[in-house]
């Protein structure tokens, strides 16, 4: 799903926290959204996910027929948070919930949940209480729950910031696989530049609410044009 952002603005009080003139996010690719704390990454992602409304401007969602719609295609977009909320039930039922919401058939749900749990190494935890899981397990369940919907666009806000390497690998593998197999579009916010390098096709660098630079991931990460991007990538402090 291609995305077009037009003149998105958002402020808190008198402080503008988001001011994006134009931006296009490519379809069927993994886009990394990077930038220092407070740059407005989460704000932007929440607006794309329909959780927050901009003061002006619009997000246009690319549909399958090539046209663009200003309305969020609810069933095709989902988001993963840093600390996902687990329903007060078992792991299995957490993953099944979105499918039930779509009124999928019982047998279909059963099969799909089983496959997802196998893919994410969650089978031994199937009957566990989901809200008692560790951070990494929680994130895997949340990802399985999100992927269960076969979304066209998956938004991820720092999904791997407090989980161990094996779980990180599972999550990255999933994004990679879904992109190759189902042309899923994902946008991921991460402070881990090595991860962005491994995973992303496209990179957007934000600073103080604005998009400073965007383009092919390899290019931006190896030869950033703007001094602020350069400094950020070099790990320097931004002044």
């Amino acid at each position, binding site marked *: 799903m291609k995305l077009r952002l037009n003149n998105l603005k958002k402020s808190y009080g008198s402080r503008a926290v988001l001011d994006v003139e134009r931006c296009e996010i490519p379809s069927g690719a993994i886009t990394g959204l990077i930038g220092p704390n407070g740059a407005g990454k989460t704000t932007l992602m929440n607006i794309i996910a329909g959780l927050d409304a901009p003061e002006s401007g619009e997000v246009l969602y690319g549909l399958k027929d090539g046209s663009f719609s200003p309305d969020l295609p609810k*069933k095709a*977009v*989902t988001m993963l948070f840093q600390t*996902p*909320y687990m*329903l*007060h039930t078992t792991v299995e039922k957490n993953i099944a919930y*979105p499918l039930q919401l779509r009124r999928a058939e019982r047998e279909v749900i059963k099969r799909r949940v089983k496959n997802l749990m196998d893919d994410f190494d969650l089978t031994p935890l199937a009957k566990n209480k989901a*809200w008692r899981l560790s951070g990494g397990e929680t994130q895997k369940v949340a990802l399985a729950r999100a992927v269960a919907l076969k979304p066209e666009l998956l938004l991820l806000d720092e999904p791997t910031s407090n989980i161990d390497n094996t779980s990180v690998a599972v999550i990255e593998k999933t994004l990679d696989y879904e992109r190759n197999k189902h042309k899923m579009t994902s946008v991921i916010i991460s402070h881990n530049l090595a991860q962005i390098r491994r995973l992303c096709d496209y990179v957007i660098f934000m600073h103080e609410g604005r998009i400073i630079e965007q383009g092919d991931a390899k290019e931006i990460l190896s030869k950033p044009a703007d001094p602020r991007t350069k400094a950020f990538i070099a790990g320097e402090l931004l002044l």
Partner: protein
Amino acid sequence: MDYIFDGIVQAIGLILSGDPVIFEVVGLSLRVSGTSVLIAVLIGIPLGILIGTREFIGKRVLLRIIYTCMSLPPVILGLFVFLILMRQGPLGAYQLNYTPTAMIIAQTLLVTPIVMGLTYNIVRDRAKDVGRLGKTLGGTGVSNVFLMLREVKGGLVIALVSAFGRAISEVGAVMIVGGNITGKTRVMTTYIAELRSMGDYSQAIAVGIILLLLSLIVNTILYQFQQRDEK
């Protein structure tokens, strides 16, 4: 010391023999407190959810008031209801004082803020997360309300049971508006007070034991749900 021991033995005898006076009193207690809690739940849960999921002007003040009312002394509330229902009072025409209806009114006012406040607390803690999850999974308005109810149901049971525990064990309100009239408005707590003043300890202990058993049941349920509902 013997009178305590004798009292307990006799009390158990009274309970086992199904003493009609005792069971009449227990029955009225359950009826009055049960009805009050039912009404409180019907009012308090929807309002608690509403307050917990919405922002509006005066919310903080309202919450202050609800929290204060949660720990209002029953005597004061009883007095207030009594004055309103008094012959010369605004609702005097209905002549409700010294009837179970007046007791139900008083206890409803006593426990509605408890149900509302506890519902608010749990909903507030989860509203944002559950709302966000429902939305990102493509739920509709209706499915999201059901999701919210499902996620807070343990907390709602806790609210209900706490309210019942409070109602069944309070003396002040039912004493003032009900007046502990034999066969009409006599409930467990007021009856115990009456029996004590008459020196009928075994009967008092018998009623006390039943009240304790009810408390035990209430607290067991509470504990179960608290365990289950823990984050």
